[in-house]
């Protein structure tokens, strides 16, 4: 049996959870999911449609929102009772956090960001996981009775398997200490405009922007296309743009339909954040910049002269 920790936010299932289910089903047909807290039952149907036939729902009157250690306790309760061969979660901050607590409490290894998982024997598994934001792949062997792993986003496609799931509710044991850290509040959209991570179009600028001024043109273009403005790490380090706009390994990872990189050379740190774009256009004076090997279309030109023309033409096309 494989247990999937399925995260949700106030009843809204993390879409990556279904990819995790898919990864789990590759290991064993018998996949259980675990959901914790109030409103979690809203997720059951989605999990069932992806092939989960048993959903464990942990609750406790003291748990009213995401509470990392309580969620870990829930995982451990199910683990102890059903002895799954593996526990998987999405490679999100929450998924990693919950499994890290589990791993700490149970003194088990945890492998993160896996793109391939194989159970090779009793107590051993082989995984392929991402290092350096996916610029390097690691193959490792893990020795543990229960494999704890997080799954890299988009490494496994969701597979439909319609059916019903049986829900088994249980009380999550918690102490005061377990409840100490939890979400106490949510603050509104810290970043304005279209969210970078979800944007269908990302217009990004790098060192070649030569300063904060030219970003006005990127905003204009993003407005026309209904997209968001991004940037490289050089730009945020220089203080030209807020960090929230940084695309890259330590910034936001984006997967838009169109990504346009203006004056970005394409360091590994940046590529890690934009390589999932469906179409990548690079505009650079250097026709051989590393970004070009990732690009679908290239414009070798000075962005400062190109942008005004492009904006005008895009606006005209939009108006037409």
């Amino acid at each position: 049996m494989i247990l999937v920790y399925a995260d949700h936010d106030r009843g809204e299932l993390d879409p990556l959870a279904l990819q995790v289910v898919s990864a789990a089903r590759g290991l064993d047909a018998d996949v259980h999911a675990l959901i914790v807290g109030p409103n979690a039952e809203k997720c059951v149907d989605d999990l069932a449609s992806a092939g989960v036939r048993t959903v464990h729902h942990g609750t406790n009157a003291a748990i009213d929102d995401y509470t990392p250690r309580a969620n870990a306790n829930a995982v451990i309760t199910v683990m102890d009772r059903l002895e799954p061969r593996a526990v998987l979660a999405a490679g999100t901050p929450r998924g990693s956090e919950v499994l890290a607590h589990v791993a700490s409490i149970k003194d088990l290894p945890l492998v993160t960001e896996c793109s391939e998982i194989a159970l090779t024997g009793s107590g051993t598994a082989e995984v392929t996981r991402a290092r350096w934001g996916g610029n390097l792949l690691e193959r490792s062997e893990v020795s543990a009775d229960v494999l704890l792993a997080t799954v890299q986003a988009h490494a496994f496609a969701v597979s439909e398997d319609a059916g019903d799931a049986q829900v088994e509710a249980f009380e999550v044991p918690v102490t005061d200490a377990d409840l100490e850290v939890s979400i106490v509040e949510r603050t509104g959209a810290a970043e304005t405009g279209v969210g970078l991570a979800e944007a269908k179009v990302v217009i990004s600028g790098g060192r070649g922007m030569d300063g904060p001024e030219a970003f006005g043109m990127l905003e204009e273009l993003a407005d026309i296309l209904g997209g968001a403005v991004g940037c490289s790490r050089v730009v945020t380090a220089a203080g030209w743009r807020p960090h929230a706009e940084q695309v890259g390994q330590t910034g936001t990872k984006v997967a838009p339909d169109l990504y346009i990189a203006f004056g970005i050379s394409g360091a590994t740190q940046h590529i890690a954040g934009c390589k999932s774009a469906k179409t990548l256009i690079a505009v650079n004076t250097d026709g051989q910049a590393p970004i070009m090997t990732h690009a679908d279309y290239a414009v070798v030109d000075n962005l400062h002269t190109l942008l005004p023309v492009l904006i005008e033409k895009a606006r005209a096309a939009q108006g037409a």
Partner: protein
Amino acid sequence: MDICVCIKRYPSLGSAIMLTDDGMAIDTDKLGFTLSPHEECAVEAAVQLKEEHGGTVTLISMGPEGVEEQIREQFAIGADRAIWIRSDSTDIDPQAAAKAIGDAIEADETAFDLILLGSESADNANAQTGVRLAHRLGRPVATAIKGMTIADGVATCERAVGTMREVYRVRLPAVVTVKDGLNIPRYPSVPGRIKARKKPIDEVTGDLDAPSIQLMGLTAPIRESKGAQDLGAGDEAADALVDVMKQIGVLS
């Protein structure tokens, strides 16, 4: 307030990664070394807190000789002292690393109010050392934090989720793992550099457990050039770009 920041030495990569002949590590022969942006932000946050609340900033790093370079770099930013856990490599199993760091923190005479780490390492991205360390020390932990204020012995921490921020409150003493974007790290100044040379580094020997994750090999995914289509330059390029936007459907 006494703050401890865990930092790690990483090679500074170009656009291609070269591996050693056995494929078990990055060939760092021609590379320089640096910290990850997460950790730079952690040190910056610690120094800002020290400037605001007083206290000390202690660095902890694990690895061979070279880690002193990154320690001195952060001394120049404003950290005061360091604990160097000597080990053969910086590539350490997270279970073993958390235990060794926990041992060093417990053994140290400073009772740290706050222990900061990067949310995950730039190289291995195990994303768990901070949580393991918190359990080892019996302290609360908040992870992947992009905003933090401290008042009345409580750290108010924000985690960015999409365009929203989740707020956690963590009572000190605590462990917090932070993400790039928490602040804009300052550059070291020359006087900072000069002071950095005299700041103390206490060397301790780490007792590292055998790893339960065994590395079998590394591969750099072969980057086939997509063979970018050249759209020319100037007006011609602008027209071509508009056409592409129309094709994709982002422009009507």
